[in-house]
């Protein structure tokens, strides 16, 4: 195996990612067409799908698929973490908060090096939990909107417009987070541009592991974190850390 590449994601995780991406894309297109119904482009989408009724059906079944993928993932993750097969690497810890502060200080030039992150940094954790929780919020509010008569049997009526407001706003929020944060981090960020290969090949370069996930790399290679830091190839950081 190539010494310079580190395996990060198994085939299953990659398949899961791209299935979810497709479902997400369908939900975004059909959802936005409903949210911004006065736009011509929305009308175009709706007519392509054969009318609003079909579009709503597609949106709802995509929602069901979204629930299935999310639930399957959550169940797998819980089972694997509980059985000890996975480390609880996505768990939010106190270090994540100090990492945020550390990184902002580093960006502003106050600190010499960025936070030393483990398998997932705080940005990835934020996206992961954001998407996971949002998926459950969107599915829950979506079901309320799909079956209003059933839900008003035991819930007050204003839950329906509340669910509507939440569904539409939260949908926009999650879209903006993905479109800005995730697309930046995995495509346009100068550290990965033109694309982060992690979710295509499952591997990333060892060099990126050094910079982005030194704690994990140290664990994999049985080294101390300081030994890893010394491999930083960023001259400015090396200068500031006096590693040369």
């Amino acid at each position: 195996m190539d010494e310079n590449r580190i395996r990060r994601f198994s085939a299953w995780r990659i398949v899961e990612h791209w299935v979810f991406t497709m479902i997400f894309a369908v939900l975004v297109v059909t959802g936005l067409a409903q949210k911004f119904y006065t736009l011509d482009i929305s009308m175009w989408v709706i007519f392509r799908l054969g009318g609003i009724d079909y579009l709503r059906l597609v949106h709802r079944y995509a929602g069901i698929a979204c629930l299935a993928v999310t639930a399957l993932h959550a169940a797998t993750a819980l089972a694997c973490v509980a059985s000890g097969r996975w480390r609880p690497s996505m768990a939010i810890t106190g270090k994540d908060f100090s990492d945020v502060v550390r990184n902002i200080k580093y960006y502003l030039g106050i600190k010499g090096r960025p936070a030393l992150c483990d398998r997932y940094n705080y940005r990835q954790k934020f996206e992961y939990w954001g998407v996971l929780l949002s998926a459950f919020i969107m599915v829950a509010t979506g079901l309320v909107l799909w079956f209003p008569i059933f839900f008003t049997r035991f819930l007050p009526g204003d839950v329906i417009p509340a669910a509507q407001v939440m569904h539409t706003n939260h949908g926009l929020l999650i879209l903006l987070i993905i479109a800005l944060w995730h697309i930046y981090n995995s495509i346009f960020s100068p550290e990965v541009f033109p694309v982060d290969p992690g979710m295509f090949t499952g591997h990333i370069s060892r060099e990126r592991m050094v910079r982005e996930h030194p704690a994990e790399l140290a664990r994999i290679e049985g080294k101390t974190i300081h030994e890893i830091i010394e491999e930083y190839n960023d001259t400015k950081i090396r200068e500031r850390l006096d590693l040369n």
Partner: protein
Amino acid sequence: MEGMVRKLIALLFIAAVFTISHAEAGNVVLSDEALGCLQCHSRRGIIKTFENKEYLEAYVEAEKFTDSVHNWLKCSDCHTDFLPGEQHPDRRFASREQYKIRTALACRRCHNFEQINNIPLHTRLLSDEEAGNPHPCTNCHGSHAVKPVSRKTYKSEEQYCLNCHSHKLTMEFRDGETLTLKTEVSSLQGSVHKRISCSDCHFGFSHSSHPQRNFRSRRDFSIANSETCRRCHFDKYTKTMDSIHNVMLGQGNLEAPVCTDCHGSHSILHLGRERTLIANKCRTCHSVVYEKYIKSVHGKALFDENNQDVPVCIDCHTAHDIKNPLTLDYREQIPDMCSNCHADKTIMNKYGISTDVVKSYLSNFHGVTLRFYRKQREELDKPAKQIAVCTDCHGIHTIISTRSAAPAIVKARLVKRCKQCHEGATENFPDAWLSHYKPTMASAPLVFIINQAYRIFIPFMVIGIVLQILLHIWRYTANK
């Protein structure tokens, strides 16, 4: 050349005769007999009483008789029972009408049937006479003051026509129905058409021509006659071509209304001035709907308060291009109809009604779906399903104010309405509808709070992420 000379001579001859006859007209000499009769009959007070107590004054205006075309006749030429120098015969008549009929028979002594029948106007009268309905000549031509038609001067065409049509004339149709041709002067005077002439509408009729027409029924006659309106009101006529009434007429329903059924014929009025008139016109056929309408919030305001803001039939159904209200096309137009008034602040402010009702409908599930269905039908030509419009909750002709009942009653009624489409809807279900109000802390706290939270949270997140990205790029370039 020879022809020209002959014509010239003929013209000269005619002119000469004309001049002589006019010179003579200046100093008419009445017959001795006439002068004798006039000694008594030019004075008032000679009364002839008939058996039904009607009476007639045997008075002759000497001046008018002198001016009449018959001034050269002797009285006994017409009044054949009376001979000069003899006692007046004692005659008995049932009525004045009978007297007139008998006396007018004298005309026929000189003016024979063929001569009278030659004039188209007379043909109907003569055939009517054969059927036992005599029309005395004197009804139209007068008696002692009779003038040649050519010398009669009418102030207007109307006066000419009314000369006969102010009398009891009737027209018979093939099915035996009759129609009176008597026209009331008062109705013509009150009509918006008082300035136009009879033949403007009754085209084909003139001083010289009086076409004979043969209609199967009175209704056929009305339908055919209403075609005349389009000669001026072509815009309205083309609109009626698309109306359900015209479609029904085309399908053979002769009861479907034509112009004159709503507007009248000789007494056409401006209906717009008094809107109750409009509702009453429609009532003629649509009485069931009318009864519902007058009990509605709109109908009550119109009839009880004479409120001219409220819609009457034509405001929703239009006046001329009335569409079938049971079609999907019509149904999809309903929010537009209501918003004609309910989106108009100047009208709604008077009654304290919010114009948000229309906006909130259009931006909610039902309104948005309706919008899609309309477009889909226009562009994909797809049949659309029905979706709730204003009338599905508020009623069609029975619309009442939601303020006219206690909120609990309104809500109970609303549950019923919801159930018509949403089978199994419970008491809670109507609360899903924010009652046409924008959500506020007071009206819908949950919706309001969630909305406000996202209004703050979304920009906060976006700005935070963008700042992080910018900082990251800045650090990366600074490190290079």
